[in-house]
């Protein structure tokens, strides 16, 4: 190698370009080291080259050789201790090239002697790879079977190249590091993704459980609401049953106590009537007014008591033959005291006898309540029209008042138990809920139509008697 000769300079340049191109083409650490080993051997026209890299604990690893190592060579054989190779150590520690002109004349360690003997090495050059003030390895170039004298310029040139190449080695190492980090990162991301997937699955499961628990709670809530409604209905019915029972006892007792003296009057009337008829009396007309008044009075009292009795009868049978017109008339008689001169009662009854199968007392309760509501709805002057008709298998009674009407937003609630618009203590809120239940007991329907200030129509539909037969 003659640095000044031009053709020689071009050859070296070519080799250097080849080395650098080869290095650029790969990022694999071992390959880079092999390229450097081969390239430097070619550059220095030397048969044998080797690269030792320095590991931790002052251990050396034979990373590349020229000619190349057997790829099957076990790694343990490629390892060596720095202390057993003093010339390598000198290069690493001094960070300067070392030169053995003739191995035959140099003092060598047993390990060094082994290698020299194995490859018949004669002249040796050691170039440390220095990176950031630190030696990361050594390139060894050696001639086989003959000595060669390396001049200073050659050694210095070799070290310069080695310095450049250590940058490439460092780059590769950094790249490997980067690659390892990237792989680590990818592994980490993969692991985290798996964990996340697992967590998502668990969350989905928990969510599903929550949804199903939510469903259960929702259902329980609905059941509780139904139970509450049932409870309220039962309470309302109990309230009504108790009220009607005590009213029944009272009415029956009072009726008995009225009917007996009424029987005296009826008997005495009959006796008087017979007596006066048998006598010759001039002004019979006057007597007939007296007697007629007594008779009318007896009838009216008797009817009222009878009506009350029907209303509060404790009979629970649901298959009595009940005449709707009779029931309505009875109710009107009972409620007569509440109908003042401002209220006009209009009756548009069907000419047919309308018979419902049911309980006469309960039917009285239904119509008495609806009539009571109609009367209460009329605050000034007004009319209550009662119509009855038979349509298919239904007997339809309408109680139409010209009262204040029911607001639209509450018309759906008026049959709920304990629903009231009255002030506390003014009403129980049970009237219409009880009426509604009583209509249902008769397999009937209760409907309301209302317009504010115009009035309300309460419609009771009851199955005809024949339908049950």
């Amino acid at each position, binding site marked *: 190698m003659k640095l000044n000769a031009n053709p020689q300079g071009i050859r070296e340049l070519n080799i250097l370009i080849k080395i650098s191109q080869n290095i650029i083409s790969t990022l694999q650490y071992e390959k880079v080291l092999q390229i450097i080993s081969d390239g430097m051997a070619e550059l220095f026209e030397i048969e044998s080259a080797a690269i030792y890299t320095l590991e931790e604990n002052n251990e050396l690893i034979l990373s590349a050789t020229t000619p190349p190592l057997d790829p099957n060579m076990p790694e343990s054989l490629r390892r060596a201790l720095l202390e057993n190779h003093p010339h390598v150590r000198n290069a690493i520690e001094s960070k300067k090239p070392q030169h053995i002109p003739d191995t035959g004349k140099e003092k060598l360690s047993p390990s060094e002697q082994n290698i020299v003997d194995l490859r018949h090495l004669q002249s040796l050059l050691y170039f440390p790879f220095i990176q950031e003030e630190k030696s990361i390895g050594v390139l060894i170039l050696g001639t086989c079977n003959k000595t060669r004298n390396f001049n200073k310029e050659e050694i210095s040139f070799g070290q310069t190249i080695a310095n450049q190449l250590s940058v490439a080695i460092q780059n590769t190492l950094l790249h490997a590091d980067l690659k390892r980090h990237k792989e680590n990162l990818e592994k980490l991301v993969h692991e985290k993704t798996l964990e996340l997937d697992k967590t998502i699955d668990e969350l989905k499961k928990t969510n599903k459980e929550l949804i199903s628990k939510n469903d259960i709670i929702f259902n329980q809530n609905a059941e509780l609401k139904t139970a509450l409604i049932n409870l309220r209905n039962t309470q309302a019915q109990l309230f009504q049953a108790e009220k009607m029972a005590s009213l029944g006892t009272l009415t029956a007792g009072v009726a008995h106590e009225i009917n007996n003296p009424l029987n005296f009057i009826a008997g005495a009337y009959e006796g008087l009537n*017979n007596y006066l008829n048998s006598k010759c009396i001039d002004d019979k007309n006057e007597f007939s007014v007296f007697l007629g008044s007594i008779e009318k009075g007896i009838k009216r009292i008797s009817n009222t008591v009878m009506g009350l009795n029907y209303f509060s009868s404790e009979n629970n049978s649901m298959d009595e033959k009940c005449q709707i017109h009779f029931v309505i008339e009875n109710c009107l008689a009972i409620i007569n005291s509440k109908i003042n001169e401002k209220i006009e009662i209009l009756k548009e009854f069907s000419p047919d006898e309308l018979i419902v199968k049911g309980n006469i007392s309960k039917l009285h309760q239904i119509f008495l309540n609806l009539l009571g509501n109609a009367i209460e709805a009329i605050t000034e002057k007004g009319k209550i029209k009662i119509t009855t008709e038979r349509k298919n298998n239904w007997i339809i009674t309408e109680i139409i008042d010209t009262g204040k009407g029911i607001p639209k937003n509450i018309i759906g609630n008026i049959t709920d138990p304990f629903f009231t618009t009255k002030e506390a203590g003014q009403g129980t809120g049970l009237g219409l809920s009880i009426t509604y239940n009583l209509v249902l007991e008769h397999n009937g329907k209760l409907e309301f139509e209302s317009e504010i200030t115009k009035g309300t129509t309460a419609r009771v539909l009851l199955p005809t008697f024949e339908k049950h037969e």
Partner: protein
Amino acid sequence: MNNKINVLYIDDEPTNTELFEIIFSSFFNVVTGMDGFNGLEILEKNPEINVVISDMRMPGMNGLEFIKRAKNKYPDKRYYILSGFIITEEIRKSIEEKIILKYFMKPFDITEIKETIFENA
């Protein structure tokens, strides 16, 4: 004795029995008693009685108890209740079982009683 129907009327209120006797004597031979025990005695002494009308609520035994005992002994007589109470389940049942033929309510309707007794005679 004439050929009129013989009627026994039992009521614990004397006003009721007195008036009944005055009013119905023109149609029937009327005998009255003041309670169930009295009624059973009268029936024993007067086998010609063929119609028995009784009040319901009376001291000692009520009208239906009296009629059941009487009917047990005299099954061929016709029995009725005349009461100030509205018809009860007990009375409805006794009509269905033909223990009594009819239930009259106070204040009495003379025509109704008269016609029923004649019809069933």
